[in-house]
């Protein structure tokens, strides 16, 4: 589970699906580090509204992004059943970890590459949608976490990063 997968879903690859509001989304399973229940985060001053703060994940400080806020939900609640999906993406200086808050995790499904339909043109921000796939009558939006989080957390200037290290 340690190596974040950057490649597109290979034949028979598995996808973790989760729900936000009415919609179902999916991310490649190799990106997912763990799924954990909601716990209070430490706020970061002057962070964007959808960046809730940081969390201690076994000694690493992990930023938490509320995907619901990012995707336009306004009425979000934080209850014990709210879920944080911890994903690992490849940054310039190695793997980086982020938490994504969603309403709930639903399933792990197999997706064949042939079943993936390209996403319709969605304008700005659409680059993190890798495609759509229909499973059992439901439409699942496959997300590219590298694109999604890479845009949200731009790479830190390596000079700067050494200061607090």
């Amino acid at each position, binding site marked *: 589970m340690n190596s974040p997968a950057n490649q597109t879903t290979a034949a028979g690859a598995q996808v973790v699906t989760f729900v936000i509001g009415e919609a179902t989304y999916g991310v490649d399973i190799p990106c997912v580090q763990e799924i954990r229940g909601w716990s209070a985060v430490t706020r970061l001053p002057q962070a964007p509204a959808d960046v809730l703060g940081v969390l201690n994940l076994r000694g690493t*400080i992990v930023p938490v992004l509320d995907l619901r806020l990012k995707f336009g939900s306004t009425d979000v609640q934080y209850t014990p059943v709210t879920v944080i999906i911890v994903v690992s993406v490849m940054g310039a200086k190695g793997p980086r970890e982020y938490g994504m808050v969603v309403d709930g995790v639903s399933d792990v499904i197999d997706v064949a590459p042939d079943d993936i339909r390209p996403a319709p043109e969605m304008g700005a921000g659409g680059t993190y949608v890798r495609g759509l796939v229909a499973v059992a009558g439901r439409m699942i939006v496959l997300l590219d976490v590298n694109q999604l989080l890479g845009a949200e957390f731009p790479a830190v200037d390596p000079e700067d990063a050494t200061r607090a290290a």
Partner: protein
Amino acid sequence: MTIDLSQFHDAFFDESFEALDAMEAALLQLDAGSPDPEMINTIFRAAHSIKGGSATFGFGEIASFTHSLETLLGELRDRRISVTQRISDALLKSVDVMRELLLSAKGKQPISMKFVTDLQSEIELMIEQRETLDAPAPVLGTVAATAPADAVEWDIALRPGPDFFAQGIDPLRIFRELAALGALEVTAHLDALPDCRTLEPARCYLRWSLRLLSPAPEAVVREIIAWVNADCTVTRAGHAAAAHPAPVVPAVQAGSAAEAGSIRVGVEKIDELINIVGELVITHAMLNQTSRGVTGPVGDALRSGMQQLERNMRQLQESVLRTRMLPISVVFSRFPRMVRDLAQRLEKQIELRIVGETTELDKTVLEKIGDPLVHLVRNCVDHGVEKSALRAAAGKEATGTVILKASHRGGNVVIEVSDDGGGLDPERILAKARAAGLVGPHETLAPEQIQELIFAPGLSTAETTTDVSGRGVGMDVVRRNIADLGGKIEVHSERGHGSHFVITLPLTLAIVDGLSLAVGDQTYIVPMTSTIESLRLTPSQVTCIADGREVFGFRDEYLPIVRLYKTFGLTPRTRVLHEGLVVVVEGAGRRIGLFVDDLLSQQQVVIKSLETNYGRVPGVSAATILGDGSVALILDVVDLIRIASLREAA
């Protein structure tokens, strides 16, 4: 099959650079006139090991140059040439040349050979002219105390370990050098040699017995095998085997730096250990909190167990952190040379005294403190200490003194740089500061405040800009670099009696002593080194000045109040100043009062980077994990002051 030697290059370069440092240090102590034979030996051994290594690895230029150098050193050691200023200068220059050569070999860069060959010919000339340079000095307690006039038979047993060849040692070279001393008989013992199918070509299965008939003194013979990391004995034939094992200690460790056996470990391995121990501390704190809720005999047992665990963990943490510590001599060692060269160029007489060079501090701190110290020492030499005539006129000794001192004080390392020169000139500093617009024309300042001004950006009091110092960048950069390390710098100076700079640094960058503060539902840590005092204000102490800015009186000055909940956009428990607390913090020479809800405790926290996964956060330097597993941000006081002053300016 050939062995790829390039895999050993890094080790060779590391060791060679260390050998050069040892050479340089010994050379500087050699200056005094009557050379200490042990010093010459140290230099000789260092040159010898570089020569051996470079020949093995095929760095012909280095080997050739060091060969000439070694010949000269040999002459010095055997007192056929005595140490003069000219020679010690040439030797120092050759250290530079060898460093250049090694650097170019390491970076595989071509290098201008002109100055190498020039110096080499100069050295060779010195060797040729030895008769005319001076008469041979009488042999006074030379290295070879047992130097026999007649040929003596030496028995040498060489029992190398299996990784002998992998260390890049060529036994043939040793044999050739020994053979140069006299008649040599070599017997190889092949009894441990396996048959061809199981033989590993890179492994050494051989042993040798050598018999040398030579008039050479014992020290010379030992010298040749000294850099062989193998079990090796030298005995006089016929004598009982009072077998001294050959010194396995590499030449670089000769002299004061001698220490017990050591191994090279990658810094990242140590950092990993430090991280894991940091985890352990956090986990322990969490368990500790849980154990408080357990009642009855089980709870008591649990708590006493936790206490024991805590003691062990503290020890573990200290030990692990100590592995990253290096003596400050690593940094101090460059100064004798620098001061000597500078003093020569500036025609001043300066003695550098170094105190406490064994004081240890974190490797990262050590690496970053070098430049600021160079700057301070240069300033002392250039602006601080006066020329001899001036000193004599002021009734001081002709030779000025610069003192570099390191010591432990509490959980900090204190480095002091002081000189007995002219001291800071408050009037000139003030005039400069007024000219630069740093101080208003009618503002009056206390003497300490004037001295503080030297750390202001864009202020250089040097009358003429020399190539040594006075380029206008300087003390402000020094202060910033030190602040980046979580330390601070102060200056005390008395006109006519010199200046005294005191740098206080944390022992390590992994842990900080902090005060935890509460604002709303958040906890913040402010480093103890930045905190002056915390106090509860009464309404009468606070003065509102224009547009909602508040100040309060604190020790003869007025400090702005920064409400942390406003800066960070939080909902506090109280907005009323006298209900919360004000913590006076200091950064980059300025002070502010931070208004917070409450003080929680003083504790040591493990510093965690926020930037690995996130990025820079204004007003925050890093994060840490508290006992309950939650994250707390560590405040960057300098940045908070900057933000506050931006707001003021707006």
